[in-house]
């Protein structure tokens, strides 16, 4: 097993894709190519590169501005069908998901909590992921330790989705220390993000 590490931190598209393609084409045995990048667009493009070559890939957010995309290869690649490296800008539409409650819809609370869990899971399965997910008021109880949606939200974050949670709300619920995914935001950013969205989804 050969494990190749590509450090593309600080590089903008198409450099991370070019660097990774070069390593992929040079692979002589089964192993992984692990590319470190600092932006979501690079993550998206690397995942697209892997899928265009029919390779398994996964991404992970290590910390703020540090993502790792691991592409698994089973052996030398067949001659690359397309030599030029595809480098789309941000393919995601500027869709924003706004979660304002820990329940989906009105009626029964227990059912509402089950529904919101299902909603977030289904968002994480979307082919076209949203750019941002915003949590406020009751919604702020979802991206925290012990939340049933945490795993799905971490998956979203690893795929380059920005997760923002209202700081006032975390403070109100005494959850500031428990935020486990994404970052804290304020009303200005929330309003700007929603105002600049091409589409807003609210469960």
């Amino acid at each position: 097993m050969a494990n190749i590490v590509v450090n593309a931190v600080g590089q903008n598209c198409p450099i991370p894709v070019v660097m990774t393609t070069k390593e992929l084409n040079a692979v002589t045995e089964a192993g992984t190519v692990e590319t470190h990048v600092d932006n979501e667009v690079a993550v998206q493009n690397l995942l697209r590169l892997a899928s265009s070559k029919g390779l398994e890939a996964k991404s992970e957010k290590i910390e703020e501005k540090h993502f790792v995309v691991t592409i698994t290869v089973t052996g030398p690649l067949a001659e690359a069908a397309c030599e030029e490296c595809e480098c789309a800008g941000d393919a995601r539409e500027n869709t924003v998901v706004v979660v304002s409650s820990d329940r989906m819809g009105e009626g029964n609370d227990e059912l509402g909590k089950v529904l919101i869990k299902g909603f977030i899971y289904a968002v994480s399965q979307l082919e076209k992921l949203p750019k941002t997910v915003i949590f406020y008021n009751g919604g702020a109880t979802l991206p925290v330790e012990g939340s049933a949606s945490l795993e799905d939200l971490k998956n979203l974050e690893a795929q380059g989705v920005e997760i923002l949670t209202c700081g006032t709300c975390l403070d109100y619920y005494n959850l500031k220390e428990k935020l486990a995914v994404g970052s804290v935001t304020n009303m200005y950013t929330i309003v700007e993000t929603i105002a600049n969205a091409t589409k807003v989804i609210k469960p």
Partner: protein
Amino acid sequence: MLEKTFKKVFTFNSTTDAIAFERACKNNDIPGRLIPVPRAISAGCGICWSVPAEDGEKVEEFMKASELRCSGIYDMLL
């Protein structure tokens, strides 16, 4: 897209059954989670219990030992 792995999926006759099953599993440390029923199983609405394939037996045994019943068990790549 996220990496897909093999899962065992348990469907139920009603939403209430699914919620009751979740409660029982949580109380007994049984692995898995509720997810919306995958389209491949049913186009209708519903929620089901999903576990990584390797934990499937644990859930089946738990179900046999309890009074809870599911309406179907599926192996899927999710």
